[in-house]
């Protein structure tokens, strides 16, 4: 992370979003909105005084996964890159009520600038890598697991923060009351994964993540840990060895998908506990396991705005919403759109090693393209026969790439429309729309398509009887 911040060739634009993309491979034009952070990066030293002095505490839904707090002006975590804090306008007392300015008062380098505006930067690039990641599944959708109603049901992301030394409890694993260490913990796999009601796919990381959590709980609290799994998936190097290790540490495994988590005690020993009810499929019996804490190993989902992002960059998503690669085996980081590559969980659920590998693979593809200096593109283009064009201008708004322009009458040369071949992407819409047949398209010409159509109909479905239809 630090090496990114310092890299002379990397222009890091944090707290920013791409708002517009135009052009084509080799020559995209990108517009980025740099959100106003109300902190002058030229002046800010990253000392953190503003954050200390800010009186407004906000639950941190992003970095702390809703389990901790941050200030209205904040750096998400101490090692953040870049080092500059941002001011969250929605929660800032000054912006909401007009008074406070504590941050401004205490900033020695006068870096707070309440007048800052969003900035829009436009620049050209030749290639694009999309690594927009995933969203964690919201387990409130599975009401029977009690998340949001039962205090001591946590998500795996919440648990990560709980366990992190930099997290809200300083790494102490405790119940929602903030003090009690759990004596027993149940970890539930496949929460929102492999389920036609939510996500039909395997989220890939949950088994290993759950094993890791089991290990951390054992190590830090000594609690009894149950893992409720559907199938244990520990493919890849060193993964199954890790499973062996967690087994040897004494974690208890129940093969069964959890039916429900409840606080309604039924049997002795259940009072005051969370009861995990599941079938232990290996013995074929229903079990009720009382625990103090439940951790839900939640699914990975496409980012909520993946569809819009895909449309902005001209790439498509699967039914689930993951970006589609050019070929699942042979071309896993390229997309249908030349010059746009995908890496990491934007393409599908995957773990860290796989994400790193895809990031590197996408980079290799990009560098390869850059080194070629130029790119050969299919000569699928439209062109207008000037003599036949009557300048009716039907075609003028058929092109979303603005490749068609209208040339008005000048010096006795009558008006016509023309196609700029560099901008034309070859869709052929204008070819079909041209009422006078003045626009022709290469590779998919009307003649070619009509000929193919006629050829296809030479034989009827029912067979050989019409072979004489083949023109002699």
């Amino acid at each position, binding site marked *: 992370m630090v090496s990114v911040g310092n890299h002379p060739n990397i222009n890091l634009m944090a707290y920013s979003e791409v708002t517009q993309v135009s052009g084509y491979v080799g020559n995209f034009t990108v517009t980025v909105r740099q959100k106003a952070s109300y902190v002058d990066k030229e002046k800010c030293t990253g000392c953190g005084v503003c954050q200390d002095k800010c009186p407004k505490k906000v639950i941190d839904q992003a970095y702390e996964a809703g389990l901790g707090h941050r200030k209205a002006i904040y750096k998400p975590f101490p090692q953040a890159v870049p080092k500059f804090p941002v001011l969250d306008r929605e929660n800032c007392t000054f912006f909401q009520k007009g008074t406070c300015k504590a941050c401004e008062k205490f900033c020695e380098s006068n870096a707070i600038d309440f007048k800052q505006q969003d900035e829009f930067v436009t620049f050209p690039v030749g290639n694009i890598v999309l690594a927009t990641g995933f969203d964690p599944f919201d387990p409130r959708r599975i009401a*029977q697991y009690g998340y949001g109603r039962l205090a001591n049901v946590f998500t795996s992301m919440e648990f990560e923060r709980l366990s992190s030394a930099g997290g809200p409890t300083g790494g102490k694993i405790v119940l929602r009351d903030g003090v009690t260490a759990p004596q027993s913990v149940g970890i539930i796999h*496949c929460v929102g994964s*492999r*389920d*036609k*009601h939510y996500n039909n796919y395997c989220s890939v990381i949950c088994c290993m993540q759950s094993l890791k959590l089991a290990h951390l709980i054992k190590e830090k609290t000594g609690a009894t840990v149950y893992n409720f799994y*559907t*199938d244990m998936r520990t493919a890849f190097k060193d993964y199954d060895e890790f499973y062996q290790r967690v087994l040897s540490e004494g974690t208890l495994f129940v*093969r*069964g*998908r*959890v*039916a*429900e988590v409840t606080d309604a005690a039924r049997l002795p020993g259940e009072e005051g506990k969370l009861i995990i*009810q*599941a*079938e*232990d*499929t290996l013995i*074929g*019996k*229903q*079990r009720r396991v009382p625990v103090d804490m439940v951790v839900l190993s939640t699914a990975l989902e496409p980012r909520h705005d993946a569809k819009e992002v895909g449309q902005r960059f001209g790439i498509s998503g699967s039914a689930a919403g993951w970006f589609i690669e050019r070929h699942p085996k042979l071309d896993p980081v390229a997309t249908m759109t030349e010059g746009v590559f995908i890496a990491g969980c934007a393409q599908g659920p995957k773990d860290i090693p796989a994400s790193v590998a895809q990031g590197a693979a996408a980079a290799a593809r990009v560098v390869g393209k850059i080194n070629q200096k130029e790119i050969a593109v299919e000569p699928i283009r439209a062109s207008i026969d000037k003599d036949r064009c009557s300048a009716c201008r039907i075609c003028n708004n058929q092109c979303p790439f603005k490749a068609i322009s209208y040339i008005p009458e000048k010096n006795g040369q009558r008006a016509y429309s023309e196609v700029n071949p560099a901008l034309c992407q070859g869709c052929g819409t204008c070819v079909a729309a041209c009422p006078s047949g003045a626009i022709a398209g290469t590779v998919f010409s009307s003649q070619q398509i009509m000929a193919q159509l006629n050829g296809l109909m030479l034989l009827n479905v029912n067979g050989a009887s019409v072979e004489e239809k083949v023109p002699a």
Partner: protein
Amino acid sequence: MQQVASNGTPKTFLDQVIAATPGNPHLEMCIQCGTCGGSCPSGPDMEHTPRDLFAMVRAGMKDQVLRSNTPWYCVSCYYCTVRCPQEIHVTDLMYTLKRMSVKSKLYDESIAPDFSKTFIFWVENNGRSFELGLMAQHMLRHNPFGVFKIADMGVGMVTKGRIGFTPKRIKGMDGLHAILAKAKEIEAEDDAKIMGGAA
């Protein structure tokens, strides 16, 4: 999807069970996760959890499946159906297995099937069910002394007007008889077709 032999009959017991179930029950999609067995309110009383039973169906253990008490302990709460990650219509399948076990006469414990039969007796003869007749007839046959256990309830129900002494009868009884007779005829044809294929 079910496998169908060239003569149109299902090939395996699994296929038969699917074919005999209205709607598409998706039984072939079971991943043996146990969500059904975990969710079942009467699961602890079942000889086999639904998941277990489905594995047996898949293994072609027809006799054992149809002898199992599992379907008869199904209370039709549909928890399994709405929770199944593979959208298997578990409850509907339990009905199918009940039908199959009654028809094959393999389930030897008679209380549950008899209750259904007694219930249907009143419906088929009156068009409506008759609580008092049903309870009386069923209890006398299977648990004559049980009457005393719930005597207070019975007395309460009677004194509070919640038990009628005469069954209600619909007007169109003839038509209903004709409909049910025809339906049973079709059911028999269907059964012959479904069960015909497998040995």
